[in-house]
């Protein structure tokens, strides 16, 4: 298997909101056109951008958001898609932007998922973990790669409708059973790994879910890549805010060593959680 996709040198640029669509209550698809055309590096699934949401002196930290898709990327125009849940000042501000509004971006940052050469992959998404994994699935569709995607939501109301357009097998789990299977998506992953032969597992979601998925993947002997979240400062490995513990008790910086890690590199004790 190839190394986890190496970090690219992010650049700062202004970006203009082109399209906003409410995907489910409080969750928005935001499409931004990068001003000045495409920079050198096109983001890969799992990479993220730091958003300068224009907080003046009141809100000093940028907001890291995982790329949800590349709508357009050619010689003239770059348009990127983000899936954003309105949970605090920064995300609320982003979700209430109007078409034509500007933000500042820094990216693409971090290491993304690296795709195995062949065979079938299992993608396991919990909640907003669908943001990078939908991007990954779309890229796998483009490359005619085989995969199954398991997606967990609180209930039917949170279901992410574009999932129906993917080529891979999609199986949905809800906490209350209002759509698809009732129960945890990690439970679904357990069943799958016993039956089907997968060559890789890719997962993103709440910490508890990823811990379980990493554990059962390791037991099944299937390499697993996890996309972690952590409270970030700079996003480039300078401030050392977002560290988690590696299996050798070393510090791993989620922003620059990750956010995608091979699961065996993570200690799974104090790793960050998605909120």
């Amino acid at each position, binding site marked *: 298997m190839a190394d986890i996709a190496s970090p690219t040198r992010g650049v*700062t640029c202004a970006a203009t909101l082109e399209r906003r669509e409410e995907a489910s209550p409080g969750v928005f698809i935001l499409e931004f056109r990068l001003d000045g055309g495409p920079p050198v590096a096109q983001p890969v699934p799992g990479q993220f951008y730091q958003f300068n949401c224009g907080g003046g002196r*009141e809100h*000093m930290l940028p907001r890291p958001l995982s790329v949800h898709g590349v709508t357009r990327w050619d010689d003239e125009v770059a348009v990127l898609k983000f899936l954003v849940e309105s949970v605090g000042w920064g995300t609320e501000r982003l979700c209430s932007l109007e078409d034509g509004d500007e933000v500042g971006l820094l990216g693409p940052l971090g290491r993304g998922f690296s795709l195995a050469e062949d065979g079938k992959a299992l993608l396991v998404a919990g909640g907003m973990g669908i943001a990078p994994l939908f991007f990954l699935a779309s890229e796998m569709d483009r490359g005619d790669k085989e995969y199954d995607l398991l997606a967990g939501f609180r209930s039917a109301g949170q279901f992410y409708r574009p999932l129906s357009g993917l080529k891979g097998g999609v199986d949905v789990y809800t906490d209350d059973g209002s759509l698809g299977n009732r129960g945890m998506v990690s439970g679904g992953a357990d069943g799958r790994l016993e039956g089907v032969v997968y060559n890789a597992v890719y997962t993103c979601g709440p910490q508890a879910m990823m811990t379980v998925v990493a554990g059962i993947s390791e037991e099944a002997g299937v390499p697993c890549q996890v996309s972690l979240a*952590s*409270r970030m*400062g700079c*996003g480039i*490995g300078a401030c050392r805010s977002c560290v988690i513990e590696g299996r050798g008790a070393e510090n791993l910086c989620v922003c620059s060593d990750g956010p995608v890690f091979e699961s065996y590199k993570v200690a799974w004790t*104090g790793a960050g959680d998605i909120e």
Partner: protein
Amino acid sequence: MELAVEVAGVKLANPVILASGTAGYGIELSSLVDLSRVGALVLKSVTLEPRKGNPEPRVWETAAGMLNSIGLENVGVQALIADIIPALEGLGTPVFASIAGDTVRSYARLAARIQGAGGVDALEVNVSCPNVEKGGIQFGVDPGATSAIVMSVKENCDLPVFVKLTAAVADISRIAVAAQKAGADGLTLINTIPGLAIDPATRTPRLGGVIGGLSGPAIKPVALKAIWECYEATGLPIIGGGGICDTGDVLEFLIAGASAVSVGTALFRDPGRVLDIIDELPGAIERAGARSAGELTGTLTETSR
């Protein structure tokens, strides 16, 4: 317009410096910011042995600022000397190493190691980190301990020594005078101010290390007061920082008594901010009626309008 300044013998092309801790070891920022254009780079504090730092979460945004509880995670002085300082050779801007110890002797050893290795232009002595169990701010609130550390550092190196102080004391000028008498060549003011953020839903602290250091515009007035008092009391060259976001802030820091300023928290949202400030500084100084950056230093007039 003359932007160049000299602080304790260190010549800076302009007075805008990258603050310790926020710019890592410089290498992380180098693809985003042309470091040769900044006045100087202050490296993240190192200790004798590498440190892993405090539990996560280590950062929390607060009103007009942020709390951090990194806990002096660093690669240790050996890696600094072997890997980082050589990588910064030819950077084109002065490099300040920053040291933090948990005993007087450890500061002395750090100073000697860095002096011996060469490659840095000045030393910043961090006696004000709020996020460590032993040392740090405990030294910086005590004139005797500060004095002992500065003396031991000066005995062990010939580099210009800047002492980074905390404003979390009743009278910072007492500490500054103690540092000066012990031989400090300059002061760096101010370190983050100890603070606490709470999640009311769980009644737990927002940070893994419970308390953290507050930085950003929220602490700017505290920093200005500290600089003004220390400038009046010591006349030492001061690197001033605390929430600097634009050239207006820079002017205030210079007028309060700083000879150079450090930008930190503002880098997180926009690493290029520091270069914007440098580009806009000549115009700002001119509008303030001065012909150079240095001309503004310590010009506070003590009558209100």
